[in-house]
């Protein structure tokens, strides 16, 4: 097998993996702090994708520009969702939270189906089908751009949690819930803020995804499942872990498709998940609880 082919496929896999990582980042942030598993994660991403499609269709706004206001809108949706709906469930058994968020997911998917119909949609910008020739490598331009944005957003998020007072307060809530209450932090507000930030990440990822894939109202569960696999591999609650998990899954799928049967490539992602669960249950960069 030519080495150029292997290198090309590996690079595509890494770039795709970084976008996967961004997709999973929101899920990881929310779980890391609020300790709620967002079963409506994929559907929230689908809302963002449709918002980007509408923005492009109606006003010709590039999804890379539209992702800023879309992230803001998703932040607001996430904030309100946490404040109004999830907070009352915080101290209830986990299965109640799962059912609540699964119900939210079903409502979102069916609402999108009623508004947009079952046809798949995407955004075809001028550069959507361009490639960059770098030596023997032929790299998809859109993947390079989206992977770059994924790294930028992850770095920004990391800086926010590390260097800002609000970020440190959110981390305090995650590390010691009781301690955070004792020192007077408004934990419920910080939870809502975290859910908003996680949702904003989902919004940015959803808007960018329209450049890479076609979206249908029913695509949400696929995103949710993939995000779960990634964050479990990388470590639930770990931001670098989400990116690492994404890259690992993207790369393994690409190489499995090349060396084995392409139709079975997602099987390899699940195999990695099983191995991680067996030998490092907290995930590659997760902390032991």
């Amino acid at each position: 097998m030519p080495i150029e082919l292997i290198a090309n496929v590996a690079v595509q896999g890494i770039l795709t993996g970084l976008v996967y990582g961004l997709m999973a980042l929101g899920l990881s942030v929310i779980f890391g702090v609020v300790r709620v598993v967002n079963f409506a994660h994929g559907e929230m991403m689908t809302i963002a994708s449709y918002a980007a499609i509408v923005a492009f269709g109606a006003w010709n706004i590039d999804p890379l520009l539209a992702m800023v206001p879309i992230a803001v809108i998703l932040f607001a949706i996430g904030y309100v969702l946490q404040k109004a709906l999830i907070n009352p469930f915080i101290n209830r058994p986990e299965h109640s939270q799962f059912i609540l968020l699964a119900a939210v997911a079903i409502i979102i998917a069916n609402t999108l189906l009623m508004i947009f119909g079952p046809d798949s949609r995407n955004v075809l910008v001028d550069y959507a089908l361009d490639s960059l020739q770098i030596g023997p490598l032929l790299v998809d331009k859109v993947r390079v751009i989206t992977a770059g944005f994924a790294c930028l957003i992850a770095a920004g998020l990391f800086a926010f949690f590390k260097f800002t007072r609000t970020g440190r307060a959110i981390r305090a809530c995650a590390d010691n819930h009781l301690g955070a209450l004792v020192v007077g932090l408004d934990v419920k507000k910080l939870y809502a803020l975290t859910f908003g930030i996680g949702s904003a990440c989902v919004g940015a990822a959803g808007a960018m995804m329209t450049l890479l894939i076609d979206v249908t109202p029913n695509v949400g569960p696929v995103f949710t499942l993939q995000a779960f696999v990634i964050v479990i591999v990388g470590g639930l609650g770990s931001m670098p872990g989400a990116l690492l998990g994404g890259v690992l899954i993207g790369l393994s799928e690409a190489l499995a498709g090349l060396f084995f049967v392409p139709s079975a490539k997602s099987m390899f992602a699940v195999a990695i998940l099983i191995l991680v669960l067996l030998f490092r249950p907290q995930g590659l960069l997760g902390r032991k609880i």
Partner: protein
Amino acid sequence: MTVKLTRRQFAAGTAASAALLAGTAPFNIVRAQGKKLKIGVLLPRSGFEAQLGIACQRGIDITQKMLPAFGLPGDFEIMNADTESNVDVARSRAEKLVNEGAHVLIGAFDSGQSAAIAQVAEQKGVPYVINIAAAPQITEQGYKYVFRNFPTAPMLVRNGLVLMKSVFEKSGITPKTVVFMHVNDTFGQAMQKGISAMLPSLDMPFKVVETIAYDPQAKDLSVEVAKAKATGAEMLMPVTRINDAILLVREMVKQRWEPKIVMSPGAPGFYENQFYRTLGKFSNYMITNVPWYNPRSAVTQKVLDEFTKKYKNEMFELNVGFSFEAVMIAVDAFARAKSTDGKALADALRSTNIKEHVIAGGPITFDAKGQNPNIISVTLQNLDQRPKVVLPLDIAEDNLALPLPSWSKR
């Protein structure tokens, strides 16, 4: 005054009522005969096949206005039912339609759902006209009430491969190497098995250098296309659905893979409205060998005019054509049988001989198994961002344009 009913009286009364109903049932059937024909239409209007079921529905919806123009009665009733793209739902909806008085069933776009409906039709003695379903076993069961106006999978594959030779001859381009990519679902696997079995006997001029199966839920075909490109094959032979057909071509453009020919042996994807809407100029020059409407037929022209008037933004394609013909066949049988009785309708269906119709091929007739053997495939090429018949020449709308021009020169 109150009347006390003992358990014995109640049981006796119930039994008497049941006996009365059973005794008069044959009269109900007799009374139903000669009435308006009720056609139960089963299509996947929701679920993963919804887009295609809705396309079929459009073909059904124009029949009431159009059939009188061809000398057939227009006073029939359409009873719609949604199979939800699910085999079990298809079966229960078929039973419900029959219980509600449907005299004939039509549907169901999908082989699994059609097979389930065929069982119900046979049990109840209600004729069933299949609009679209290719699994050969449906008409191999010895059913007496099942009629299919659509090619079987082996017919599709054979017709598709034979037409490839005509394309090579007409274009003067005969590829020596082919890469075969197919969606890894029931349909894709059936096509793969059919093609593998038939290729040696058809003496095709090319060698299949690589077969690449991919996940039907795939959101990205970059690896698959990279692998196919690395073979250096002169022709790509894809078996796709619509979403993966779009992914495939998009990835080919990105990876600058330019085989001389891209020709499907008979699968959806390239000729669908969404393909043109999504890919624009990059949708051009793709070829599909598939059963299609005859653009030269007077019936097609009239139906096409009505369809275009009613659905301005939709495309008249094979789903519409075959669904229209299914109703046409049922109403034609009713006109000859002059009865809504299941057996009389089935007998009339067996002697169907409709010479002027929509789909390309010979007259609509049914053999002893209930299969129409006269449907041909045509070569469709995407030109000016719509599918055009380029072969056979006697019904061609445009000239075959090969090899594929470079992506950058479009």
